[in-house]
Each structure stands twice: as C-alpha cells, then as structure tokens.
C-alpha cells in the first residue's frame, strides 16, 4: 500500500465529503455512512482519474473498489499495473 496515495485520497475525501471531520479511518465503510453517495461517486472518480491518470470503466464501479479508503487506494494502485 502506497501511503502517499492513501493520504491524498484521504485528504480529498475529508475536504469534499466530510467537512466536519479531520480524519477518516482507513477501514470505515464510506458507502454505509453515506460519505460517498450516488452523486459523490462521480466527484470521487473524476478526481481519481485526473489525479492518477487512468480511466475507470463501468465494471470498476463496484463496492469492492469503493467501500473503504483502503479499498479505494488499492483500486488506484491496481490501475498502474493494468
């Protein structure tokens, strides 16, 4: 796990979706808590694509890639290996 990637995503999530908080635990369920909803996923994916230089496909839009900060980071790192 690249801690730099995870930190950048963490900071984006806090700044965009959890303004009242200062941190989000890596294992917190972002979908169940509503931190990421159907509108938020658009913003998150746009950020990830632009910042890390890849294009997410429809098949990528599954809970296994977006439920927690850890999963999002792992998903981004897998893009570099495609």
């Amino acid at each position, binding site marked *: 796990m690249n801690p730099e990637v995870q930190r950048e995503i963490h900071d984006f999530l806090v700044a965009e979706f959890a303004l009242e908080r200062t941190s989000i635990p890596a294992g917190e*369920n972002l979908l*169940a808590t509503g931190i990421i909803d159907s509108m938020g996923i*658009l913003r998150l994916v746009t950020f990830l694509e632009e910042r890390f230089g890849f294009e997410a496909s429809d098949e990528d839009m599954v809970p296994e890639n977006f439920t927690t900060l850890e999963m999002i980071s792992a998903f981004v790192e897998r893009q570099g290996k495609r």
Partner: protein
Amino acid sequence: MDFSFTPEQLALRAELVKFARRELNEGLADRDRSHAFSREGWSRCAAMGILGLPFPKEYGGSDADVLTTLLAMEALGYGCRDSGLIFAMNAQMWAVQTPIWNFGTDEQKRRYLPRLCAGQSIGAHGMSEPDSGSDSSALATTATRRGDRWILKGTKTFVTNAPIADVFVVFATTDRSRGFMGLTGFVFEKGVKGLRIGNPIEKMGLRTSPMAELIFEDCELPSDALLGREGGGAEVFSSSMEWERGCLLASYLGAMEHQLETCVEYARTRRQFQRPIGKFQSVANKLVDMKVRLETSRLLLYRLAWLKTAGREAVTDAAIAKLYLSESWVQSCLDAIQVHGGYGYMSEFGFERDLRDSIAGRIYSGTSEIQRNIIATQLGL
C-alpha cells in the same frame, strides 16, 4: 459534427408528424380534465413502431440508431399535443424496456420485450419513494432472499403507468451496508403475491399519464426476477436515465418548435393599433428569444446524441442538455401564453395545459438543481 439527416430519416419524421396530428390529439381537452389515459393512442403508437424503435428486431423492435430515435421523438413532440401520452411512452421505453434490453437475461428479453414493443403490455418503473427522491442511496425498500424467492418490503411512489401496468421494473436495497451500491433491480409481472397498487395520484400536469404508488407487503418474487447482478441496481438505473433524458428532451424540442410556429403565425395575423402585434418589438423580441432557445436546445441535444453514438462519455453534456431544454420548455410556454394574451390564458387554446405539463420537466429524471450539482462537480467544484 454533421447533424444533417438522411432522406429516410426526414421521411420518417414527416410521417410521424402526420400520424401524430391525425391520430393522437382528438379529445385531449376532455382527457386532460378527467385525467384519462388513451389506451387507443398507445396502441396506435405501438402499431406505428414507436415503442420498439431502438430495440432489436428479434424482440419486436426496429434497430433504429440514437439519432433516428431522437428525431422520431422530436416528431412526436411536434405533432402530438398529448404530452402525458408521450411521457408515459418514454417512461416505458427508457426506464423499463431499456434496462431489460441492456441487463436482462435472454429469457427476460424474450418474455417481456416483444409484448412491450407491440403495446400489448404496459411497463412501469419504480424508484422514487416517499422519503427518497433525488437521493437514491436513501431507498428504504428492501429485498431479501428467502429460499428461492426474493421478498420485497416498502413503497414506491410517483410510479408512472402504475395503474395500467402489466410489467414492473423496481429497485430495492439488498445490502444497506453498501449504500447506493447495494441497490438491485427486479423485473416482474403484475399479480405477484404481496404487490398492491395504490390509488391514482392527481397531478398538476401530464394528467393523461396515470400515476400511482406501488406497495410491497412481503411481496414474493421468483429468483428469475433479478434484473442484472445483485448490487448492480445503480448501474441499471443510470443507463436508463441517460436514454430517458435524451429522448424526453427530444419531444420538448418538437413541442417548442410547434409552439414557436403557432406564436409567429398569431403575431403576424393578430392586429392591434392597426398593425400585426409582431410589429411591436416587445412581442417580436419574445419570439426571437423563443427561436434562440429552440436552436440552442437543438444543438445541445444533437451534440449529446452525437457523443452517445460515438461511445463518448457525456455526463456533463447530458446534464447541460436536461437543464437547458427543460427550463427552455417552461419559458417557451410562458412566452406563448404572453404572446396570446387573454386567449393564451384560456384552456381552450392549450397553452396553459402545455405550461402545466412543462413544469414536470424541471423535476423528473433529475431536477434542475441536481443537474446543476452534476455540472458543478464536473467543473471540480
């Protein structure tokens, strides 16, 4: 970008305008007053092949491409004054037939699509709930497995076609811990145990398109009612919305063109102070603004169709088109009433019905506010 149409496409447009004017408008004022749906109009549209336009021939469709389909819906908007009927057809074509076509099993496609394309069955789509409108992640309707069946509990509201539907596409949450990614689609026929259809809901406009609630009281669905994969409901829902937005907008385009022509004709012939009212700049300017909105709307919509045809991503373009065309249609209705003065305000002339119908466009398929949110997001805000 080349937005010119082939002679065949233009012939189809002309044929559909003629058909709509001749077959779909009679008795509309009475139907609007009594909130009556025209099953006859529906069957006539099906016989013209409208309900099957973009769907594969093997399932009763015509294999029409995106632009041809948009042009056909535009023609319908131009010739048919019954916006409720057009809305009801769009609700079935894009929110019922399209998800079945894109995500259904071969068996589901064979079972449902031919009857829907032929107008023998009517489809309804249930997503909104009493406490969940724009925020689809807040759905309260649940689906749980019980043996080889699914058990649905909850209520869907604002379900277009519900009182007359034979086939339903409905979304429920199968895993709340996954938020909007825990949504799952289902397709099934009326008569399933535990499904109750509420009383028809009265509306401000689009009164000829019937609407009701769907109440699921431990409703039992067979395992083959699953539409797409479990947890794939958001994807199924989004795909239908892209089509729905584009094609509903096409009918607004036709309606705005018809309205402008009517207003220009009136402004050229209605005389006040010894001259046609169109000679007064305050009236002429309204008509010019209607024309500018019509042509900018046309460009936005055709560009959206071009992007979709090219397989390009069009999230921002779809949101801009939905926002602009729906707001333009409302403004066009207001201007048409103003140009016609007292006559415009009278029910007999139909402009007040158009206005009542048009307001819904700012709300359904994603409100104007949600479209602005989407565009803002895409701007990085």
